[in-house]
């Protein structure tokens, strides 16, 4: 496999990782929340989609459209879930000490994994895509890429652009940045920080749902997959540099490429190589590739 092919596969993989990471980046940026259950929520979304497909089966359009319909239905549910989670569970854990939010999200991670295990058993599942996950499209230069991975990449870029626009150009984004800069003064302006945080988490859960559905279409998911996805999301955010969604995308692409290189060297070393590059980057450039500096 040529270097160009490895690069291509890596970038496409990175697209998916960006979807894993965008929510994480948002949560940390707005409220300094480290969500150790990030991966588990993605897996939860995947299983919700699988269950939804099974339950709604006869009502859904036949063929390839079905998963996308279920995915679309899942978005507002995910949004609401994120809002409720922040408002009633996580808001109470925020503060100077990172421990409470860490322990609570860690607890949630355990709860989700075991709940899924109970309901779905440990068998890996996936979403039936009717050949979409093996279809490929020809690219210039004699390269070929999967239709689904290309689609995922496009969705990732779009999601990044939307989030960037939201933060930079809208009143909602302005309130996120203000609350993150100085919560006390933001409240003095008339903002209710609890509601702002809840809205931020609600928005963060949209790419989580999208990532879950796409992951289950691309490959299999099992209840214990959460932690692995969390580490990928985290590595993408750190390597990309905090404070910037485009940075997160860049970090995710870098991770995808390094993992692909690792996989080609030896199938057992793919993830390991990604970790090593991450740690190396942490040593030489701890602020990441494209950090947004704050004065």
């Amino acid at each position, binding site marked *: 496999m040529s270097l160009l092919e490895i690069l291509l596969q890596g970038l496409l993989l990175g697209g998916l990782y960006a979807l894993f990471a965008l929510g994480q980046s948002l949560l940390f940026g707005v409220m300094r929340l480290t969500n150790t259950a990030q991966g588990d929520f993605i897996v939860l979304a995947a299983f919700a989609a699988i269950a939804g497909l099974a339950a709604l089966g006869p009502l859904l359009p036949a063929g390839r459209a079905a998963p996308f319909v279920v995915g679309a239905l899942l978005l507002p549910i995910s949004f609401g879930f994120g809002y409720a989670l922040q408002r009633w569970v996580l808001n109470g854990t925020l503060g100077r000490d990172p421990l409470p939010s860490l322990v609570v999200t860690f607890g949630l991670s355990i709860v989700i994994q075991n709940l899924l295990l109970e309901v779905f058993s440990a068998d890996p599942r996936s979403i039936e895509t009717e050949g979409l996950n093996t279809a490929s499209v020809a690219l210039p230069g004699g390269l070929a890429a999967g239709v689904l991975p290309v689609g995922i990449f496009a969705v990732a870029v779009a999601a990044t652009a939307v989030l960037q626009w939201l933060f930079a150009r809208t009143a909602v984004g302005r309130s996120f940045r203000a609350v993150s800069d100085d919560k006390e003064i933001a409240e003095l*302006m008339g903002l209710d920080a609890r509601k702002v945080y809840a809205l931020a988490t609600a928005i963060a859960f949209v790419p989580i749902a999208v990532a879950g559905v796409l992951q289950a279409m691309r490959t299999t998911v099992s209840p214990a997959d959460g932690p692995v996805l969390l580490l990928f999301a985290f590595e993408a955010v750190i390597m990309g540099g905090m404070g910037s969604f485009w940075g997160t995308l860049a970090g995710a692409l870098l991770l995808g490429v390094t993992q692909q290189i690792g996989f080609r060297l030896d199938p057992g070393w793919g993830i390991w190589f990604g970790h090593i590059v991450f740690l190396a980057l942490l040593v030489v450039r701890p602020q990441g590739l494209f950090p947004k500096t704050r004065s």
Partner: protein
Amino acid sequence: MTRLLETTGLVAFYGDAQALFGIDFELSAGEIVAVIGANGAGKSTFMKSLTGLVKSEREQIRFGGAAIGGLPPAEIVRRGIALVPEGRRLFASLSVEENLKMGATAKRRGPWHLERIYRLFPILADKRAEPATALSGGQQQMVAIGRALMSNPSLLLCDELSLGLAPIVIKEIYDALPAICAEGMSIAVVEQDVSMARQVSHRVYCFQEGRVSLHGQSAELTREQISLAYFGI
């Protein structure tokens, strides 16, 4: 003159440490009142209590006839008290214009809007798209004042406007106050510079170790009276 703001026996604590020991304070509509005192006298704590950043008993603070002690800051700004915080505390991730817009979050009706702020402080119009913290100290102070004005308050609280600024800049800032007051807005200024405080205000309160040690008409109080009250000798 109608009494706009009134505190009765206001106390304030930071954890177990008491910072205010019973402040009686009043301010009428259209007045400019100065609060002076040494560092640690409780002036900033007083401002924070008025805006809800530090909790107090409901009845200890009355504004516009209603008891507001201990209400959340967002509620207090909705009722018409705005703070220009000590040290400016602009939002670092926001531009000048975005900082000003944040001030309007409470959506109160009134004469102050973006263009009018730019007329008051023309230099800000030139720098509206720049990150707020890239401006000079004096310009940042203008943004902070503008941001507070954007909420169309009936009472503007200014905490240490002159902190870290050159005298000529301080004068420029204070020269803008009459224009702000012209339409009946009331102002309370916390100020380290005693002579500036006396020049700019109708009445003065002097704080000393969490208590009011002196108050009266700015024009009538003597320097000796103020020195005694300031240092608590």
